């Protein structure tokens, strides 16, 4: 059975401190002044929400932080969480032209955090609700897609009600991003900024019928995300000590670190980005060993390269071409048997082999119904969900007779 970890509170706090600490004013200014201010900038093109990156960086350089934050948050309501959790290595920073000069790219994510942190710090209100249109839109799911859509609908003047099954809004931003990248309080503060535009939020409500919402609302946006983690379908999966990655991470993010049980020897099955989040956080909670077990090879891993590097740096183990056959144990997990016959001794197994789709809600084919985020794209980043929410708001606004800028 998983046991409480052995780290002190200070060690735990350090283990889960921001992996990319904020820039000082000094460092931000220096970094901002390095930006070349490219035209038709590759970083902007690479961003799914097309934030005008050079413009916001130049505003940091000129000392116009309020203006900078507005440039970020106008196209991307989740600019705070994206600054912390975006895979910038494969998006904006990966596209920075300085890479072609064999230099480190501009630290776009940290600069974005520098500007957007000021919004929360100074409680700047950068956006206003539009003139009321009398139209009502229901949004199912208070994750990044739904709330991005909600914000822009409010800016257009539509009344918005968001239904959320969980007790807190924010979706995976609140419950599912690795703690060392994005903490729930930041995610919730970012959400609050959106709610402050006059979004009605109803938590603890699981919507089961879109058709029913359509009786009351002029349009519905469905952004419910994905369902629970898939099952392996091997014997022993029901043993205590087997947990799915999202449940594990959610527990960690909603309890004091000490209260999240972790095994002494943890095996994570799967090799995507969620598997990395699980294995690194198991290690950071105090597991003596935390090992990824993946049925295919190193080159087939779905995780980003830098995530793989992070896990290796954290001291996590990797077993490639290792197909789980059976979970062994008498009343609790004791090991994972592979098809080779070998058994990896462990007392906790975390499943991270992808999420299934939600089955409890059918989305009717109706011109009044719009979708976005993980449930529509099959599972992607916060920035994709935000982009899709923003685009959906435009389509809904258009549908409701508004003029899209």
């Amino acid at each position: 059975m998983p046991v409480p970890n052995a780290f002190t509170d200070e060690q735990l706090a350090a283990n889960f401190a921001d992996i990319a600490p904020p820039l000082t004013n000094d460092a931000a200014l220096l970094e901002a002044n390095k930006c070349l201010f490219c035209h038709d900038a590759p970083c902007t093109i690479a961003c799914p929400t097309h934030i005008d990156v050079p413009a916001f960086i130049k505003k940091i350089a000129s000392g116009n932080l309020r203006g900078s934050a507005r440039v970020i948050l106008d196209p991307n309501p989740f600019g705070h969480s994206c600054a912390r959790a975006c895979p910038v290595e494969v998006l904006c920073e990966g596209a920075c032209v300085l890479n072609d000069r064999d230099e480190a790219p501009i630290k776009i994510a940290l600069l974005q955090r520098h500007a957007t942190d000021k919004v929360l710090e100074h409680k700047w209100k950068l956006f206003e609700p539009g003139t009321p249109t009398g139209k009502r839109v229901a949004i199912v799911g208070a994750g990044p897609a739904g709330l991005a859509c909600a914000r822009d609908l409010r800016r257009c003047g539509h009344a918005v009600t968001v239904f959320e099954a969980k007790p807190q809004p924010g979706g995976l931003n609140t419950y599912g991003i690795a703690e060392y990248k994005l903490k729930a309080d930041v995610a919730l503060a970012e959400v609050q900024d959106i709610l402050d535009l006059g979004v009605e939020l109803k938590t603890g409500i699981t919507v089961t019928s879109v058709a029913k919402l359509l009786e009351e609302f002029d349009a519905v946006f469905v952004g419910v995300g994905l369902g629970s983690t898939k099952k392996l379908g091997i014997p022993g999966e029901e043993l205590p000590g087997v947990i799915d990655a999202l449940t594990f991470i959610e527990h960690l993010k909603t309890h004091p670190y000490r209260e999240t049980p972790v095994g002494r020897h943890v095996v994570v099955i799967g090799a995507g980005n969620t598997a990395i989040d699980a294995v690194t956080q198991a290690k950071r909670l105090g597991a003596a060993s935390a090992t990824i077990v993946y049925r295919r090879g190193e080159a087939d891993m779905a995780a980003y390269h830098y995530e793989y590097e992070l896990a290796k740096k954290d001291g996590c183990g990797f077993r490639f071409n290792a197909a789980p056959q059976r979970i062994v144990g008498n009343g609790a997990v004791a090991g994972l048997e592979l098809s080779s016959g070998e058994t990896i001794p462990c007392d906790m197994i975390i499943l991270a082999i992808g999420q299934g789709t939600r089955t409890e809600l059918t989305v009717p084919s109706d011109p009044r119904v719009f979708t976005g985020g993980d449930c529509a794209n099959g599972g992607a980043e916060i920035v994709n969900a935000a982009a899709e929410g923003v685009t959906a708001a435009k389509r809904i606004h258009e549908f409701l007779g508004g003029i899209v800028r």
Partner: protein
Amino acid sequence: MADLRTNFAGIESSNPFWLASGPPTNTYGQVAKAFDQGWGGAVWKTIGEPIINVFSRYGSVDLGQNRMMGFNNIELISDRPVADNLKEIAEVKRNYPKHAVIASLMVESKRETWHAIVKQTEDTGADGIELNFGCPHGMSERGMGSAVGQVPDYTCQIVEWVKEVATIPVIVKLTPNVTDVTYIARAAVKGGADALSLINTINSIVGIDLATFEPQPSVAGKSSHGGYCGPAVKPIALHLVSAVAGDPKVTIPISGIGGISSWRDAAEFIALGAGTLQVCTAVMHYGFRIVEDLIDGLSNWMDERGFRSLDEIRGRALPRVTKWEELDINYHVLAHIDQDTCIKCELCWTACEDGAHQAIRRLPRDNGGPVVEIIEEACVGCNLCAAVCPVQGCITMREVPNDFPAVSWKNYAAGTGKLAPRSSQFHTAAWAPRRAQ
């Protein structure tokens, strides 16, 4: 939202940001694009008898990673026919009636020639005329540009000729290549100028290619002195604007020019009395798009500070620019090093030891503690250490109050006022041998 609307000598624009006369205002297409992006006005590239330019025209001074900190040019006035320029000015004015369009003029120093070009210009519907008395290269050899602007009598004379026929505001653009710009400013006022703009570019040679000994920008191996501009010239421009704005004999509006690249620069020029701001080099570097942050940054700053209009800022710093003899010599500041943020580079020690007052003590690195500390008995509060320190806010200058009333040099020299005790420790010859040991 702060009100950025500007009325400059009767010329109205939605914001104070104008393109300065130069390469960015050479054509209808450029000016129209600039207006679409938010510029409040534009001073057309100087019109006159068309010239022929050399090809290689610009020279640049980089500072570390930063390109074009200083910039110079040996380009002349417009090489397009007068009629083409005037036609396009009329077209811009017709299509952008709410934007300020100013024609910059430079012709030979004959009364009838000036009369003719001014009348032709007025027919375009331009909002004003700027007299280019500042171009320091090429044109000056032909008796125009700074050749006029360096002689008060010539300046006054031509302004008078222009004002004989002009019905729209006349702005005189001043050259910094003079000993005291106020003499020229006063001459322009005497001639009847409605406004001044400054500074034009500064005489310069930007560098020598040491492989070939060619001055830059090289034209077939040779070069000529050119007009220097860009961020490097801003302090000179600020000084000259303040000198003119602070001159009681100059009561006409001033358009500030010289190295303006950001809204902060703009705010500084306004605080020293500028009514509008003219920008060229920053646009040549980054394009017309920079106007967005000029407007956004200035307006956010004004909102934050509670300023509603530019009039509330204009000239606000001017009363604080004074003669040296009026400064309080009993105001003492000393350097303070924040040891928590010090990165132990010892640049402050090096600078103070060799370049200032030997007021920083060096401590052994192996102690693990601070490696530099201020010797307060020796510190004269000169600011050098704070200027060289690479960590923002690490070295600060702190006021050290004393019981002595403020006293200016003027009063002190006249025998009124007492001097507070001050640092008087020097590394004299007696100190040097100890150093050698």
